[in-house]
Each structure stands twice: as C-alpha cells, then as structure tokens.
C-alpha cells in the first residue's frame, strides 16, 4: 500500500473544470446529437454485441465448462449450450449510440436542475484517453449513488472518450423499460449471487474478459460491490477484479490499465434513504414507478459533484515481483482453476490499493468538517444533559482549525479560501439545512433523530480516510497501559486489526500505517518521540482528543456488540437474522444510556460482528 508520497502536503492534484457550465450556455439537443468519435484501443477490431456473444459461446473456456457440466449432470451439451446462450442474452449489454444520445439529452436537463456544477479533472481525462489507446482499460469509480454510472458515461460522452461497458446488479433488470435503456447505454447485468453455478461463472468471466481483451470498450465496475450507505469506502469485492486481472496474468494481453475514479457528491441523492436503510427499514425495490415517484428530488439543491479520474495503474507494474506468471505454464489456460495463494493475496492487496487511490482523490467539502464538529458537539452536550447549540463564531473557529489540520494530513479539501470562513461555514449549513436544524434540537421521535444523526455521520465518514491512521494512534495512546513505544504499537495494532472490517486498512501494512500515523502527528507537533516513549505535546492534546473522539462511536459500537454477544451465548442464529436481532437489542440498550445513535447502524453492526467472528470472540453456529 505504499502509494502515498511521504509528505501528503506535496500531493499534486489536477484542476477541475465544470462541464455543466457549457450545458447552461448552449443547446442540449445539439450536444446530444453532436459528432461522437472517441479514440479507441490500438488493437481493436470493430465488433458488434452479437459477435461478442458468439465469441464467448465459442470460446475454449466455455466448451470446457459445458462438457464438464454435461458430465456432472447428465444433461446433453446442446441443452446446456442453449441454457448458456439464454444466460448470456440476459447478461449482455448492447451499447447503442442513439440511447446514449437520449441519455445525454435528458441527463443534461436533470443535472442542471439538480446540481450546481459537475467538476471533472480534464488532465485525468487526457490520461485516460492515452491509456485507452495503449492497453485495455478498467474504470473503477467509487460508489455512493445510483447516479454514478450514468454520470460516468455522461462525462465520457462529453469528452469524446470511449464509452464503457458497466457491470450492474441484476436488481436493475426489474425496472422493465429502464433496465433495457441501461442495457443499451452499456450496462450488462450480473446476478448478485451465483455461488456454485459453474456455467454462470464461466459465462460471466468469459464475457468480461472477451470485452476487455479485444479492447472493445473500457470495462467499468464498482470495486466496493455496492453503494456505500455510510460514505465510508467498503471493503473491496474481489470477484471482478480477479477476472479483469486474469488476462494479464495469463499473458493474453500485455497489460491492463486500471483507472480509479473518485466521485464525490456534496449531497447524495439517496441521503435519507440510506440512513433509513441503515436503521433496518428495508430498501425499496428498484422499479420504474419508484423512479418516477423519486422525481420530487428534482426540486432540491444537491450542490456540486466532483469527479476525479486518477492516475492509470498498470496491472503489470502492480504484479511486478509479486506474482510468478509461470504458474500458468503447466495447465491449459482455458481450464478454470482456483487462484493460487500468491495471486489471491496480490489481487486483495491491489484492491485495497485501488480503493485507497479512490479515497485519496475524494473531494471534501467544508460541510464534511462542519458535520464532524457538530456531531462531536452534539454528543458532548448529550452526555452533559445540555440542550444548546453552538455559536456560529465558535463553530467557524473550530472549522478553521480542522481545515488546517486536514490539509496537513493531505486531504483533498475544497475550501474556498477567497471567502471569509464564517461565510463558508454558514453557506454549507444552508445547503444541509435539513440536517443541522435537528441536530441542535432534541427531537422527540427516536427514529427520525437517528436518521438525521446517521446522515450527519455519513458526511463525517467522508473525511475518515484522512484521519483514520492518526486517529487509531490517538486511540492507541489513550488506551495503552504506558507510553512505551512498543505498548503503543501493540495497542495500535490491536485496534487496527479490530477495525479492519470497518476502514480501508491494507492487509499486512500495520507497520506502514503506524509509521504514517506517527509521521503525521509528529509533523503537526502533536507528538514527540524519545528513545523509548511517545509523548503528547501541550498543543497535541486538542488534536488527539478530536481524533480519538472521531473513532468513539465505532469503539462503542464494537463494545456494545461484545457485551451483547457475551450476554447470550447461543446468540448467533443466522447472519441476517442476527443483525436484525441485534438492532432490537441495541434499542433496548439505548434506554440504558447509549451514547451514540450510530451504534444502531446495520453497517456498523455487520462489520463489528464480522470482526468479532474473525478475531474468534464469537463463533458461528448452525441451527
């Protein structure tokens, strides 16, 4: 995970360009009908979607698996072939420029009403153009909203870049008309789970690989697998990453360029929906009528979006010295095999690296800092039994302090320096009016209060990746039995391990993370190191208090979980049921003085349970 430059202050980032500006000044229709001639991969041979399908069906891989399935089930190969062809029909995209143009038109209209601006780093687009010509490209956007992939295609269309094919969850297929529209704009659909289905897996992986190898189009998917409801990056899913790296590892292409894309929303469309979902209110099924009902959001202001196309990462250079590609020499490459240990850990490491690359270029708005501060205030007040707000002046002063701190930690903060800080703070309060009003008043109804707090927490979460390493260190110092360096490290390592389901912490990088945290805290004058000891400086107390408070809700969440689990030995029934169950229990707990509403978040509960399972504190039992 050593992708960070030593001094985060020195991180160079590109400038942004607002693509909506032109849309506001010229005809959308003209824009939708304009000449679209993207540069393509140098080796690409033009290929229709039906050609793609037949390439997949005729591939050695598929032949092998069909024969295998036929032997195992006794079904005739022809029947299985038909089955395969039907699955492929259900899966395949059929990108059509006319549909893209339709979206270009309608999205222009929608975006202009919803957002103030959509800012894109043009240098990144240029790098992407270059990368597309050289090698097959994989686009890895962060996933915070349904908007993400439409937005991606919209931007690429705008800049005349080759349109991607996008791996989408099958849930969209339920939306009859819309599902087909999405298919025609490049989405292909995969079932959420197909565990042991060999045929499905073979078709799916071969389909993706065929598109990738031929350079037919950039392949886009979400490393996090699903939208993050908490604005915190999710632990990466490895299935698709395995598939797109495979052609390189097997020598079928010279290299694959992976481009992490960071999409940051000032306000996510699904804001309140997410908070409700986290509290266990089931997510509404995707449906076309639902989409129309949701159109009321068109009347609200969602601020701006920042899309940052990161530096293309060459899979070849990632694999340099980590994978021995000769391991594929002794078995024909079309026979499916479980990835070896070195490949599994290589893909896992790469996935974390790529998620961190996404995080690094996430734009943070002032509100993120304000929300973090407000949350801490709220909790302190609550603990003290007080019900009062905070003076704008004081908040501003705090925010400025936090602004400087986060910059020193390398955050990609978009703080308009030419405007007085008090205005910055108050204008970001205005945009999120719906949230902060309530944080100041104690609301009667528990549930809606929780919704608001969780929404606020999700803004704070956007900044977590900046602070998480120093915060873990702060917490470690706080909990360690002494100031001995080794003690602190041990405690850091324990906490880091415990929270590894919660935050993006690269596996096996404990020492690097510790060093990075030390470096940042020492650099900002919060810590001093002697030969043996770690000392907190006079002015460091404030920083450390802020940092460890930041992780407090998580810590408490894990503690609650532990007490709950200790409470009932035969607790775990099934994973799904368990989470739900625990929500009930947490609510009970709430009456006996739970400090943080966030503990109610199903995400936190899921992660903490996974962590406890992993650490062996809890055992999963059947029945």
């Amino acid at each position, binding site marked *: 995970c050593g992708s960070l430059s030593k001094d985060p202050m020195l991180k160079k980032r590109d400038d942004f360009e607002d693509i909506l500006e032109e849309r506001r000044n010229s005809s959308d229709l003209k824009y939708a009908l304009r000449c679209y001639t993207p540069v393509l991969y140098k080796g690409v041979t033009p290929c229709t979607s039906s050609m793609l399908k037949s390439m997949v069906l005729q591939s050695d891989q598929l032949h092998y698996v069909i024969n295998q399935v036929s032997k195992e089930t006794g079904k005739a190969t022809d029947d299985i072939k038909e089955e395969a062809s039907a699955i492929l029909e259900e899966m395949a995209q059929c990108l059509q420029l006319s549909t893209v143009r339709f979206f270009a038109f309608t999205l222009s209209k929608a975006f202009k009403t919803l957002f103030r601006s959509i800012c894109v780093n043009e240098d990144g687009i240029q790098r992407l153009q270059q990368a597309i010509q050289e090698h097959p490209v994989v686009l890895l956007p962060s996933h915070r909203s349904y908007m993400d992939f439409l937005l991606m295609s919209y931007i690429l269309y705008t800049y005349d870049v080759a349109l991607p094919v996008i791996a989408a969850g099958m849930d969209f297929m339920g939306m009859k008309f819309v599902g087909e529209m999405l298919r025609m704009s490049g989405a292909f659909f995969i079932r959420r789970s197909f565990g042991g289905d060999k045929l499905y897996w073979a078709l799916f992986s071969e389909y993706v690989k065929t598109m990738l190898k031929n350079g037919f189009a950039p392949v886009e998917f979400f490393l996090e697998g699903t939208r993050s409801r908490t604005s915190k990056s999710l632990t990466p899913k490895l299935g698709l990453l395995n598939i797109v790296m495979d052609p390189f590892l097997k020598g*079928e292409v010279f290299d694959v360029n992976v481009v992490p894309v960071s999409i940051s929303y000032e306000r996510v469309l699904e804001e309140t929906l997410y908070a409700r979902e986290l509290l266990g209110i089931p997510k509404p099924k995707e449906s076309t009528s639902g989409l129309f009902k949701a159109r009321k959001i068109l009347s609200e202001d969602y601020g701006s979006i920042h899309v940052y196309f990161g530096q293309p990462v060459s899979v070849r250079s990632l694999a340099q010295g980590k994978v021995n590609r000769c391991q594929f020499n002794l078995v024909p490459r079309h026979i499916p095999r479980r990835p070896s240990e070195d490949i599994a850990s290589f893909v896992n490491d790469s996935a974390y690296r790529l998620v961190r690359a996404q995080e690094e270029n996430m734009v943070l708005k002032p509100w993120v800092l304000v929300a973090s501060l407000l949350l801490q205030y709220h909790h302190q007040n609550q603990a003290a039994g007080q019900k009062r707000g905070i003076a704008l002046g004081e908040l501003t002063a705090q925010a400025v302090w936090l602004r400087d701190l986060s910059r020193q930690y390398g955050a990609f903060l978009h703080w308009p320096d030419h405007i007085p800080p008090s205005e910055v703070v108050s204008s970001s309060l205005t945009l999120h009016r719906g949230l902060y009003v309530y944080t100041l008043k104690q609301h009667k109804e528990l549930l809606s209060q929780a919704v608001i707090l969780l929404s606020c927490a999700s803004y704070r979460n956007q900044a977590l990746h900046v602070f998480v390493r120093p915060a873990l260190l702060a917490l470690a110092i706080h909990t360690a039995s002494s100031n001995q360096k080794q003690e602190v490290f041990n405690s850091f390592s324990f906490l880091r391990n415990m929270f590894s389901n919660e935050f993006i912490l690269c596996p096996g990088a404990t020492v690097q993370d510790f060093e990075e945290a030390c470096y940042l805290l020492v650099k900002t004058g919060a810590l001093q190191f002697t030969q043996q000891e770690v000392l907190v400086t006079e002015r460091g107390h404030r920083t450390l208090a802020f940092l460890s408070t930041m992780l407090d809700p998580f810590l408490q969440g894990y503690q609650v979980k532990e007490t709950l689990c200790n409470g009932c030995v035969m607790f775990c029934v099934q994973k799904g049921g368990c989470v739900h169950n625990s929500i009930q229990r947490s609510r009970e707990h709430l009456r006996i003085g739970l400090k943080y509403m966030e503990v109610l978040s199903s995400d936190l509960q899921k992660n903490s349970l996974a962590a406890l399972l992993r650490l062996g504190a809890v055992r999963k039992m059947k029945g």
Partner: protein
Amino acid sequence: IWLNLCQYLFFHRQEILKWNGWGYSDTRFLFNKKGQAEFTGKRYRLSGMIIPALQNWFEGTFGASVQHKSPAMPILTSSAVQPPTLNEAFVDELKSTGIPCSHDAEDRVFRGHGHCLHEVFALREGKVGRVPDIVVWPNCHNDVVKIVELACKHNVCLIPYGGGTSVSSALECPPEETRCIVSLDTSQMNRILWIDEKNLTAHVEAGIVGQELERLLNESGYCTGHEPDSMEFSSLGGWVATRASGMKKNIYGNIEDLVVHVKMVTPQGVIEKGCQCPRMSTGPDIHHFIMGSEGTLGVVTEVTMKIRPMPEYQKYGSVVFPNFEQGVACLREVAKQRCAPASIRLMDNEQFKFGHALKPQVSSIFTSFLDGLKKFYITKFKGFDPDRLCVATLLFEGDREKVLQHEKQVYDIAAKFGGLAAGEDNGQRGYMLTFVIAYLRDLGMDYYVIGESFETSVPWDRVLDICRNVKARIIQECKDKGVQFSPLSTCRVTQTYDAGACVYFYFAFNYRGLSDPVHVYEQVEHAAREEILANGGSLSHHHGVGKLRKEWMRETISDVGMGMLKSVKNYVDPKNIFGNRNLI
C-alpha cells in the same frame, strides 16, 4: 592441393573471416557515397548489388542517419591483449606430441568470443577481456585424446572451439579462471571418414563446417539436410554440443534425430555406444548427456549421421496473409495436418517491411511494373492493410510431382486463412535474408544501431500471446531505460511442431545519447527473456544456454534436474577440466 589450401585457410581462418564482426572479410553492407546501400563481395546472390530502399528503411526505422557513423577499430592492437598465462609443463609436453599450437594474440582473441552483441561490440572498440592462453589444433580423434590426457595431468582448462558462432556467451573465458586456458580448435578434424550407402549413414569428424559437409556429401549425391542458419560457419561438433536445429528439420529432423552415433573424449575417457543402431532401449540415452552439454563434459570428435539422397527438386514459395493472427492459424493447421513443407516460416509485418527494404535494384522496368501491380492487387484489390499484412515463406523439397502436389495442399490450407500465394521470388529472398541478416547487424553498428536476435519455443496456444507480449516488453523496456528512439522489435515463427512452434525475435535500436548502450541492451534482452518465460516459452529452442541464460536453468529443469546434470558433471569431469562454466 585444394584440400591443403582449405586446411590452411581454416588454420588461420581470421585471414578470410572478420575478427570483429560476422562472416567473410570481403562481404559486408555499406552505404556508398550516394547514400545507397551496397552488399560487397561475390559470395551471395545479393553480393555486388545495390539495395536502393535500405537507407530509407534504416533511417526511418531507427531514426539513424548515414551521416552519423560509429566506425569500428580497424585493427587489433596486440597491447590490448593480456600476455598468456602458460602452464610450461603442459606446453612442453604438448609440443613433444607434435600437435600444432599457438599463443599468438590474434589466434587467441579470435577464439575468445562468440557473436553475442556485447562480445562483438567490445571487439569493435578494441577491448579484449580474458582470452584463451593457447590454441591447439588436433588433427584427429587420437590427438584429442592426448590433449585431454595432458590437460588432466597438468590441470589446465580446456574450451572446445568449433565454428565460433555461439550466441550464448559459451565461448567467453570465465574471468575467474586462474588456470591456463587452452582453446581446442577442431577445425582440422574436417574429413568424412566413410559413407555407408546401405544404411544411409556417414561417419564424419566433428570439426567439419556445415557448408563443407554438404558440399562433400553432395559430391557423392547425398546430403544431411541439416541447415542451421549459421551453417556456413558452424561445425558438426558444435551442433551436437548445443542441440542444434536446422531449417529443413520437417524433412530431415533436428540434430538429435540425425545423430546415430557420437564419440566424445572426456577426462574419464571416451564415451560412445557399442553399435550403430537406429534405436535402443538401454536406459536413458547416453547421447542425451552429450547433446546439449555445451563443452562442459568433453570434446565431440566423430559423429555418425544419417544421410539422404539429394532431393530431385526444390521449390520456394510464399503466401501473404492479411494479418499475423491468420498466418499463425494457418501454420497451426499445417502442423495439425502434418503437411509442413521442408521449411515454413512466418514473418510479422515489421519483418515483411524489412525484407522489402532489402530488395535489390531491379534491372528492368517490366519487373518493377510487375511489382507495382502485385502491390496494387494485394493492398487495393484484396484490401490487405500494408501495416498489418504478413508473409510466410516456404521451401518444398523432394520428387517433382510430390512437391507440386504438396505445394497445392499447403496453398489450399493457406487460402482458408485468407492467404494469397505471393510467388517464388519473395520466398527465396526470405531465406536469403537468413544468411545476410548477421551482416546487417555490422552495418547497423557502423551507424549507432545495435541489436540481436533470440529464440524460444512455445506451445501453439501461446504463440500469438508470446509474440505480442515480448515485442511490447522490448518496446517498453527501451523506453524505460532511456533509449531515445523507438526500437525495431519484430518476430517470426520459424519452425512448426506437433505441439508448438519456434519463435525468433529480432530487436535493435539506435543508441545515440546512451552512455552504456551494451548494458541497456543486456537489460532489455534480460527483460525480454523473463517475459518469454512468463508466457510459457522455453529458455532456448536451439541456441543453448551458455553463460548468458544460466540463471534461469534451475526454474527451467527443476532442482532435481539440476542435481542430475551436476552429478554427471562431477563424475565425468571432477577437476572441471572442461571449465567453460556453461549451462549449470
């Protein structure tokens, strides 16, 4: 008289061969005053001709200029050569046997290198490293037995020397060797001892050079059919010691198929089989300890080889394919149907263009008109993209009737893959290229361009991938290593087998602006070899391992395999008399 002359010439072969480049002294490429390329001498079909397109191709491909010369040192200064470390007792006893020997600087330098880029580059700069201290010329098997006995007795290091065409650093003297190094030049052992027409075998001394062997056999109406690209200079013993492969192996087989009996002198004595049988089930074949031993176990002195009556009819041919993929698919099909002609080779687009640039000046307007028409037909009428098309060259051999039949079969297969017959001329020129390409490297080196070829063998399903990836790796590495100009990175498939093919890569670049071009070259070649191995290719198809590729031997043949080879070495040559340190 002729034989004596011949012997004299090979005794002092540096008098007719270049000491710091490839081949005959009288034969080389040069750009004349008009800037046109010329091939001097009288030995080849291309000799004495003007090659009008070469300059353009050369300057365009490498970004080189005929104005920027990097000439070689014309003569060797003997002061550059370290004085020999002589083992006096050995030398005295050797002299008493009457076997000729020399410690003349030129003789020693000439036998201290092969033709790797770094070796030739150093010579051109007049730099000489560790070279043999003394050269001996045994005249027959018994002479070799005596020399090896003396070497063991006096503990000197022996390095067998055949044709000197090694491209694996096999002839380099190990710098850490402190003993007296003796180069054992087999060139005087160049007779055909007998021909057995009943069994179609010939018993030949191992020092004979390829073209000489063919010429002598042809006089009796026979041939071996073994034609490695280096056959003008490489020797029978060298073929055996490196597991050589010939262009026409589809009819005649590679060296391991041709050899019936081998005699090798080792420190433990002479190893040979007791009969001349076509096949035996007597444990592991001892020939396979000898073939590919690269001079680490002993000296091959005599070989019984299969011979064939000379073919009645030979015909060249060529096929143009719209792209390399189709070409490979066609070769694969030909191999599958086991109907490969004597030789079938597929050049990629870059090499096709390269071959084109080597067309000599045409004498008549009619031929150039025809050429233009052909080009028009292929690119405009058939719609082949001139930047993608590639060409296969063919050589058929045998009865006239069968050849024609065979030819039709192959062309029919080619047509299925979009191949168009492109005439005998293109085919013949393709094969001629094989012999002149090494001269072209010397031309490049006169103008800041260095390069080399290397080979591998690979399963069929990997052929396209390995070609693409290795070529791309070369280009990338050049860029990363600071090469200022884009390199020439090209390949061809030169042999087909049931289960795979042999692939040759050519790689050259303009080194202006680099402080240590040879080092850069070596780094790129190293990376290319890693890429080959990662893509399922072999360490070598026929060049051998030498010292250049030793580091990959263990992963190639496994720990146990290494142990086996080492224990053979330990038994046969415990004092490391054959101390060239090749292979293991």
